[in-house]
Structures are given as structure tokens and as C-alpha cells.
């Protein structure tokens, strides 16, 4: 066996690791070159050095808003799930009958606990306190990212519902 062959096939772990690191670095170097060339010359509207911006601005407005009349029409429908985006404490103080609580700022924890009550094939309606609060849109966006397709926002929120009910009790 030639000296060079013996060196290549040396079953020494340390030697192999060195070679593995070297080959990995070559692959990473080629990856870097290809990526930079692509970012510089081929891809338009893609800035590598700016932090990723989730498509919130557009996505938050993509959800259709419904009024109280539409809400009342579909509320008794089995295919609809109404979700309160506000804090759990506010939900306990009062909410629209039949609504589930899914506080948007604790989404990751609460969603795991109640996801069995929100099948993916159902129509989702989110709401918060009134037309100016952002929570219902934020929650709709999070649910959309979680895989739900059919999402509406009840823009008037709890205040709109109370106004419509003219003082009827709102806690179940």
C-alpha cells in the first residue's frame, strides 16, 4: 500500500473529524457565496440585513369584519366558534355567551389547553372590547398562523354586543 493511501484510509477518529470539519467549511463557504450572489444580483425586494418583518400590517386587515346582525345569525351555528381575545380576568367579568377565552398575549399557553374545542374546519370569530382594540385582529392573525382558514372579526366587540342586547346579562 502506498503511503498516501494509508494516510487517507487511516481509521483514526481525530483525523476523520478534521477532514469532516474541513469539508463542512468548504460546503458552508460555497453556500455563503451562492447566497450572497443570489441576494445581490438575483433576488429583488429582499434585504438580507434587515430583520424579518412578519406580514402583520397586511394580514391583520385581511380578515373580514362582521357586524352584530351577522354575528347573531351565525352564533347558534355548530360550525362557528366565538373567541374572546381579552385577558382571562376580563373574560370572567363578562363575555358574549358561548365565547371561549383565548387571551392573545398568552396565546401559546392557553391555545394548547383549548385547541381541542377549536377544530380546524370551524368558522372562527374573534372579538375584544370595542372597535378600537387591536386584540381581536392580533388573535385572528395568530390563529391564521396556527392553520385556521375561516376567520372573521366581530369589530364592535363586547361593548357592541351589550349595546345591542340593551342590558341583557352577558355572563353565561
Amino acid at each position: 500500500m502506498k503511503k498516501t493511501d494509508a494516510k487517507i484510509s487511516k481509521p483514526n477518529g481525530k483525523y476523520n473529524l478534521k477532514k469532516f470539519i474541513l469539508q463542512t467549511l468548504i460546503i458552508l463557504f460555497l453556500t455563503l457565496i451562492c447566497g450572497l450572489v443570489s441576494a445581490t444580483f438575483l433576488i429583488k425586494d429582499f434585504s438580507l440585513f434587515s430583520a424579518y418583518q412578519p406580514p402583520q400590517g397586511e394580514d391583520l386587515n385581511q380578515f373580514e369584519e362582521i357586524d352584530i346582525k351577522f354575528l347573531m345569525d351565525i352564533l347558534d351555528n355548530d360550525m362557528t366558534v366565538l373567541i374572546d381575545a381579552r385577558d382571562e380576568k376580563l373574560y370572567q367579568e363578562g363575555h358574549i355567551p358561548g365565547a371561549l377565552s383565548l387571551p392573545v398575549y398568552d396565546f401559546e399557553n392557553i391555545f394548547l389547553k383549548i385547541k381541542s374545542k377549536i377544530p380546524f374546519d370551524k368558522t372562527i370569530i374573534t372579538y375584544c372590547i370595542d372597535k378600537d382594540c387591536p386584540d381581536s385582529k392580533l388573535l385572528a392573525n395568530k390563529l391564521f398562523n396556527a392553520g385556521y382558514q375561516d376567520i372573521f372579526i366581530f369589530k364592535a366587540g363586547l361593548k357592541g354586543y351589550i349595546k345591542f342586547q340593551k342590558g341583557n346579562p352577558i355572563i353565561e
Partner: protein
Amino acid sequence: MITQKQTATKIFLFCLRLIVGVTFIYASISKIAHPQAFADSIYNYQLFPPLIIKPLSLFLPFFEMICGLFLICGIFKRSTAILLCGLLGLFTIAIFINLVRGLNINCGCFSQFSDKNNLLISIVENLFLIFITAILITKESKKSF
């Protein structure tokens, strides 16, 4: 002297390399063509900070493509098999975490514009590819390392 058995093993290993290589090249094409859509897919996993999402969406597809090409061409065979095995392991963990979380996201594995995927099927696909790369790591000649 090369025996018939050695030839058959070589052909078998080449077929395995072809399967993994073509899979990764195919998976990288859509990602390279639509980095913004791939960045959205990565974001949907809710596992990475915004700062690394763009570099990841830009470089990862090229890494996949280069590893796929190298594997098919027989360049750095064991190294690329190890790298791809590790990559598949990370992908599987990421998908598994979102499966446990109950998120019904598009895995972004092959096409960035497909409908919501079955994450469980993606995990099975990944495990199959991990199995193949494990065979390549153990069976490919040490000389190729």
C-alpha cells in the same frame, strides 16, 4: 479486484444517494426562487428570532442544494450524508414541536405555496430520509470522508 457483490453495493449506495440528493435539490428550488415565502414559512414555526429568519431563508436552501449535488456527484459523500442527517434531525424536531403545539402550519418542506401539510406525514418522510442517510454514513467508504 472488484467483486460482483462490491459492484452491487456501489450501485445500491448510489441509488440511495440519488434519492436523498434529488429530494434535497427539489426541495431547495422553490425556496431559492421564493426566499420571502420561505421566510414566512420559517416564521410560522414560531421558533426563531426575527433577526436570523432572513439569513436562514437565504442560505439554507443553497446549503441543501449544494449538499444534494455533492451527494449525487459523490463529493464528500460521508460528510454531506452526516450534514444532511443532522439537518433532517433538526427539521424533524421543529415539526414535532409544532405538532405538539397543535399548529396546523405549512411545513415549507417542498413548496412554499402548497396547502396546509400533514405534519405527521412530514415527520415520517424525514425519518425515512434519516434512515437512508444513516445507511450512507455507515456504509460509504471511509476514504470518501
